[in-house]
């Protein structure tokens, strides 16, 4: 017996936050960028058998300027650190990062001079996917968890993070 009953079927009421997040989470564009072993599992996830396109994520972008999700797939060597930092900075806001596999998350089995012990030392990470390398199902689970995060995001919060005033 509320206002809703008076509204015709063709009209949907929502908030801007909900609508934008709904659109964002279903059309994420990952950066096509693999480092090591995990990259092969990432390709497997995108390829025929597992088919990530089911979640609206199959458009791998070769350029960071068109991407909003970075999947750090593999071990990060010291020589690669400035490159990854640059790539992250080149991605337009809003952007998310998945750290895929043990090496990217914490150095994995390689605790030595050459490997960065966790990519979260240089860029902020939203989701950590464990495994060496993670199964494609695990990566999908990470992506679905990220979609939950995106769903709960607020435009207001994001704007504040970028240091802009909300009108």
């Amino acid at each position, binding site marked *: 017996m509320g206002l809703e009953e008076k509204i015709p079927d063709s009209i949907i009421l929502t908030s801007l936050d909900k609508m934008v997040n709904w659109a964002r989470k279903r059309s994420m564009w990952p950066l096509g960028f693999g480092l090591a072993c995990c990259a092969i599992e990432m390709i497997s996830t995108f*390829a025929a058998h597992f088919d990530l396109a089911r979640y609206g994520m199959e458009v791998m972008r070769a350029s960071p300027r068109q991407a909003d999700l970075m999947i750090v797939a593999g071990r990060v060597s010291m020589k690669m650190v400035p490159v990854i930092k640059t790539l992250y900075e080149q991605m337009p806001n809003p952007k998310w990062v998945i750290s895929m596999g043990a090496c990217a998350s914490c150095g994995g089995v390689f605790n030595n001079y050459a490997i960065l012990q966790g990519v979260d030392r240089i860029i902020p990470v939203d989701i950590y996917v464990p495994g060496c390398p993670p199964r494609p199902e695990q990566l999908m689970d990470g992506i679905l968890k990220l979609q939950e995060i995106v769903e709960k995001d607020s435009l207001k919060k994001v704007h504040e993070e970028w240091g802009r005033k909300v009108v």
Partner: protein
Amino acid sequence: MSAEKKTITLNMGPQHPSTHGVLRVKLELDGERVVTAEPIIGYLHTGIEKTMESMLYYKVIPATDRIDYLAPMSNNLGYCLAVEKLMDIEVPEKVKWARVCLVELTRVASHLVWLGTHSIDLGAMSMLMYAFRERELIIDLYEACGGQRMMTSYIRIGGLASDLPADFEKKVRNIIKTIREKMKDYDKLLTENPIFIMRTKGVAVISAEEAINYSLSGPMLRGSGVDYDVRKANPYSGYENFDFDVPLGKNGDAYDRYLIRMEEMRQSLNIAEQAIDGMPEGPYRAHVPGVVLPPKEDVLYKMESMIFHFKIITDGFDAPVGSVYQAIESPKGELGFYITGDGTNIPRRVRVRPPSFVNLGSLPVLTEGKLLADVVCAIGSIDIVLGEVDR
């Protein structure tokens, strides 16, 4: 702009979709022509060789998986054969045949990834989907054997990690049958495809003489018509018992290397079939107390086996003083392990002779003076994997 400088420098990679990882190529261009091409490596340097120097002999095996992550079983085999040579261990016949079967299927899996990525570089998008679909079958077999999809560490010093799974034969026969069938589709898609032929024929040519001078191995060498295959030249793991051909090319171009890899896949399936047909019965590990782990079933019921198990797991085993070199024919070429033992339970030095790294050295020969668009084809036809180049 000054009139003197006619060339421009183009930086390709390390983040580039067709460098197969994090390779960087510094190109000097005169218009569309490549003047110099300089591969810059080290973006995936993991320090694996150094890490190996602080590990017990058997703990090195998981690190070898991650060198060439497209062919983990080949790396396991190369390392284990080298340690077996150093320790003078003779493995049972069944282990040899099972290893050959698994390593040949690994070659098929690695070539499938190469086929998918190489053709996607040249614009044949659907090939990647087909290649990865068939690769999943082999990955399933790995999972049944070692419990992991990629990093199996299934081949161990003196044998295998566990006995072959119960449905091993059924699975392998299914793989052989399916991939033989699908290879016909690949042929229809690519071998006669005019666009593919235009992109690969006469592109990235290397002569037999240059190939030998650059110390190339694998399909890169055989593409130029040099008949050298470690499986035939220095048979290991019982390869002398198998009947197979080594395909050779004539022109040394990308198309010949494509044909060779396709034929190698067929030959590998034949070898795997021979291995599964003639697989002898027997134990899955050599009986060398104190060096090779006793079978898991014995560990639970026999006192001596449990003691040896405990001792090997905690302390490893002492290797004699000396150096060995063992080469195998990995999917990329001659993969060698050079191990120096110093009488302790950790290796003094493990040097890997990576075929990808040596083959990558020929990139300037393949591309200089040629068109920029063919650089992608040249990199693809070398079949590099950056984990192996940088280690």
